[in-house]
């Protein structure tokens, strides 16, 4: 029983962080209508930016975190300026932009591998002290992951609900041409979305890489987890992305408990296939209207 609870607890902690990078994917997917493969690039970039600031420049932690957030926001803006916007201006289909996004991911992954090497890098070499919490044991970093993950997700949730410009984000996904007509600055909103996504992904990346280190090829893994979480929960609602991420994480830890850690990927993609086949709108999504009769 204790093992089950411990694994469940680990799953919930991972879920809290997953809520962040899933939202990083979800915001761009929902507003740009692009399958944002470059989110994996953002993740790996943030990991190494953190490494650069904390381990190479040896900045104090607070500065390193700020530095990473700033660099990640700039990187997100760069992706928008250099890649997404030109395609948007050309009115390219979302499939085409997805391929460009894939190109970004490939380039960034390999530039990082060239610059830093392929081996796993860690930020902190100390053994993390573990703390007892609710009868189970968690490391300090796990507790940080849990509270930071939930806290940031909730804070952004408040922004989404009450923030002036955030309502426009959903409209952007449905009818981008309408925004200039309504006097809303489309291009600035696009930058906002990308930067917000970049910051969310960066926070998750820092929390994870502090815990387990990083290597240049982790991006794809978290992209897949994040995107499956968004589709699992439902692409149309912010809190559904979080619910999907948390639920997916819990299911994965159940798989570890029942079978072994080797089969977690099967759970992830089994969930994906299930969603696609039986509930394409996601667990908490609304059945899609008939947008256009064929």
């Amino acid at each position, binding site marked *: 029983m204790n093992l089950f609870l411990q694994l469940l607890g680990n799953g919930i902690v991972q879920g809290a962080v997953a809520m962040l990078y899933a939202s990083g994917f979800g915001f761009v997917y929902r507003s740009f209508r692009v*399958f944002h493969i470059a989110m994996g690039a953002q993740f790996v970039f943030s990991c190494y930016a953190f490494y650069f600031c904390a381990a190479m420049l040896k900045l104090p932690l607070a500065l390193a975190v700020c530095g990473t957030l700033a660099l990640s926001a700039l990187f997100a803006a760069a992706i928008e300026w250099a*890649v997404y916007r*030109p*395609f948007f201006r*050309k009115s*390219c*289909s*979302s*499939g*085409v932009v*997805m*391929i*460009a996004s*894939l*190109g*970004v*991911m*490939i*380039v960034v*992954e*390999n*530039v990082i*591998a*060239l610059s830093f090497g*392929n081996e796993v890098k860690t930020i902190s070499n100390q053994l993390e002290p573990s703390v007892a919490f609710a009868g189970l044991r968690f490391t300090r970093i796990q507790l940080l992951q849990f509270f930071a993950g939930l806290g940031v997700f909730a804070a952004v949730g408040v922004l989404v609900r009450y923030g002036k410009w955030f309502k426009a984000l959903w409209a952007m996904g449905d009818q981008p041409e309408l925004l200039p007509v309504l006097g809303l600055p489309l291009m600035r909103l696009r930058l906002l979305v990308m930067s917000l996504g970049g910051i969310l992904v960066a926070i998750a990346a820092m929390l994870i890489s502090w815990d387990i280190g990083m290597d240049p090829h982790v991006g*794809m893994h978290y992209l*897949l987890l994040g*995107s499956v979480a968004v*589709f699992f929960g439902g692409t149309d609602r912010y809190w559904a992305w979080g619910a999907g991420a948390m639920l997916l994480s819990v299911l994965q830890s159940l798989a570890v408990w029942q079978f072994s850690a*080797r*089969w977690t*990927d*099967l759970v*992830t*993609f*089994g969930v*994906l*296939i299930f969603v*696609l*086949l039986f509930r*394409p709108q996601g667990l908490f999504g609304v059945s899609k209207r008939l947008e256009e009769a*064929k």
Partner: protein
Amino acid sequence: MNYLLHIGVMLGIYGMLALSANLLIGFGGLLTMAQAAFYGLGAYTYALLSLKFGLPFFVTLPAAIALCALVGWLFGHAALRFRNEAFVLATIGFQMIVYVTLYNWTDLTRGPYGISGIPRPSFFGIGIESVPAYFLFTLVLFSAVLGFMHLVCRSPFALSLKALRDDEAAAQTLGICPKGQYIRAMVFSAAVAAVPGVCFASYITYIDPTSFTLTESIFIACILLVGGSGNLQGPMAGVAFMLILPELLRFVGLPDAVAANMREIIYGVLLIVLIYMKPKGLAGAYAIK
């Protein structure tokens, strides 16, 4: 000399893979990220049947093709109700499930340890052992696949696929059933992908799951995105470009690890540039929409 022949064999293998994916991507307009899964299924079927049961090549090759065709048919029924990104996602899911199974079903596949000692094919007692012999063998298989694809590309079936690709609704008004045609395309695509799988397994005589990953599927898709699809020249241009480039980089003196990363960076950049400026790729007939 052996080195050049080795490149030749790999060109042949990837050529067959590119041609198999071309049917779905170029003619069907369906970007698949699961080609490596069928490649792997073909390889493992050949390896297991010839090692465990000692079956000869003329049994194991059709068996591998048949298995891939069957799996393709089953997967097609599930995945071909989707289009565009949902389809891509479904193929990613399938690819990962196949990979995870190959990796973890150790009783059958020996998981990460792989299967070694795969026998080379032999015909009437004459084994194909040397690299030059293997090159000729691959050439024969490749020619057969190329010839088959040539016929398919000119067939009414290909015309119906192209019509569906260009406008599915309009094609339906002409009596073409989308799901039926797409499933056919999936079956052919999967079945043809088994051939390079068999070729690879018997050439290297050792296979493990790391040759059949999502990254490999993405690589195959990139061959078609960069080289072009929807005809025969595009995939060939793509294979030539993507496989010869790293060799050239090695010639320039870059160390192997650096060359591998440089190659990826180059084709990553090319992907973005080409899809923006020349969506038909280097030599293709179909512009990705």
